[in-house]
């Protein structure tokens, strides 16, 4: 086994350990469950409303859309936050001091985020299936679609998370990213179909990954008849693969460059300087 392969295996083990830690730390569990609980409550209130032009419950439509949004949150936001925080506290520097440690660290983060995404989907899906009618999870094709949308969604969002996480040296500034992300979600048809939105806004939404992750999840879990209310009256799987794939390719090309540049600058004194700054803020 080459050292690189060994490091990848260590990284997967690292992700596993951190995943286990997430599930045994009350604070982390709360962070995982609380947003889902709020979303579920919102969707319960939407149960009475229907998707425009149909008799289908708007609440049921929102369940898969929110699962698509969840991929964005774990893939982009949690990776970005994780990287920014662990750069500040010196976790990354420790990885750098170990042979092949950076590779192991990165594989660990990817494993952790992928694991959290799967758990996040389950946390959204299981109560969704119990509380909402009309979700079509009978066929194998539903699960296959769910799986590839998840994988492609993570490939499209994780490199972005890595890039933004590397660019911010102060984890408290990461919040700047959250505003546009929220705006994007609002205009991406997660909570309401965007077919009635202005055309230009529809185009904006369709050029980012969130819309497609929501659409992909809807295509997996909603009856086919519901495709009629989407843009183009279709689930547009080909376009979904195209847009998410393009984001993934761009991200996977740019992320290693940004990560390498960021990692090169890490040293004991840069961590010490950030520690000093953080201490000053605390007092």
């Amino acid at each position, binding site marked *: *086994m*080459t*050292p690189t392969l*060994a*490091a990848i295996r*260590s990284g997967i*083990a*690292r992700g596993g*350990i*951190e995943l286990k*830690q997430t599930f045994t*730390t009350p604070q982390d569990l709360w962070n995982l469950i609380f947003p889902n609980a709020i979303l579920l409550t919102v969707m319960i209130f939407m149960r009475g409303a229907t998707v425009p032009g149909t008799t289908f419950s708007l609440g049921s439509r929102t369940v898969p859309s929110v699962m698509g949004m969840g991929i964005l949150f774990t893939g982009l936001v949690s990776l970005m936050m994780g990287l920014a925080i*662990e750069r500040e*506290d*010196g*976790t990354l*520097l*420790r990885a*750098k*001091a*170990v*042979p*092949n*440690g950076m590779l*192991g660290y990165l594989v660990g983060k990817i494993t952790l985020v992928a694991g959290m995404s799967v758990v996040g989907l389950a946390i959204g899906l299981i109560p969704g299936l119990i509380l909402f009618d009309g979700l079509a999870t009978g066929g194998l094709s539903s699960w296959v679609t769910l799986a590839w949308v998840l994988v492609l969604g993570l490939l499209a969002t994780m490199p972005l998370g890595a890039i933004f996480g590397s660019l911010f040296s102060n984890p408290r500034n990461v919040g700047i990213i959250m505003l546009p992300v929220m705006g994007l979600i609002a205009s991406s048809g997660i909570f309401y179909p965007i077919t009635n939105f202005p055309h230009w806004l529809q185009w904006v939404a369709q050029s980012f990954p969130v819309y497609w992750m929501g659409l992909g999840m809807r295509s997996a879990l909603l009856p086919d008849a519901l495709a009629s209310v989407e843009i183009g009256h279709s689930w547009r799987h080909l376009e979904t693969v195209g847009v998410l794939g393009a984001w993934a390719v761009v991200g996977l090309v740019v992320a290693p460059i940004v990560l390498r540049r960021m990692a090169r600058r*890490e*040293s*004991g*004194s840069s*961590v*010490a300087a950030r*520690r000093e700054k953080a201490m000053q803020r605390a007092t």
Partner: protein
Amino acid sequence: MTVVDESAETRHSDDADVDDATVLDVRGLRMRYGSTDVLGGIDFRARRGEVLALLGPNGAGKTTTIEILEGFRMRSAGEVRVLGVDPARGNEAWRARLGIVLQSWRDHGKWRVRELLAHLGRYYARYSTKDVQRPWDVDELIATVGLTPHASKKVSQLSGGQRRRLDVAVGIVGRPDLLFLDEPTAGFDPEARREFHDLVHRLADDETTILLTTHDLDEAEKLANRILILAGGTIIANGSPDELARRTSADAEIKWSQDGQRFVHSTPDATGFVRELLQQHDVTDLEVRRASLEDAYMALVHGVESGRADAVRQFEVVTR
């Protein structure tokens, strides 16, 4: 699986006294930020098993020097070889032979002590050699740094001193050939400090070369075979603790009582003076005090900081 390919490592061969036992070889190392020279051309070497202490006031360039040697920082100029390799081009096999003790803060807070050390040790397993079994056995390592009662604690639950022990354990988990310690005992209580000193001696006995920075002169004197004093970006002294103390201040101070009176005398020839004194007078309470390392250090650094370059040159010690 390849370990370190000795033949692939570039070595200088222009100098007869650079051989296999030379672990650190630094020549004309310069570091410049903008228009300020942080390091103005420093030279030193270390042989296998040697413990070097880098002393100097804040801002003297100690951390910069260490970070260049660790491969974490690019240098502006100069020749540097660490374990025979230019640290700017060190590969992972080279990295596996280095140990770096970092000042931890709150990283890996959720990890348990044993879990973290076992995990980090995994990365070194590929780099064992016939002489060095890597990594260090986890339980043995935990016992060595005195963390056995805390092995299953979360890192965030450790006290400051315990965290520093963990930092040391992380630094040596790969059984390094060369260990970097940047102010290792900052925040240690006296007992922890004593135990840490014992650990350093044990590592040095195992042929681990150690480069440490410290503010604590007493510590440098106890641990180091050789002390380098860095001030104003240059090495102003390089020698054993004894040599430094002797060369900077040749005079010894002699105090004694005679006929109920207290006398003080300074002389370079303490032995001769005392012999004469004892022969001729009825002396009591005799006390001879050599200049301490601290006196030497203060004199040197003060000389540099007040810009008296000549004074420094006078003190310059060249030992190899």
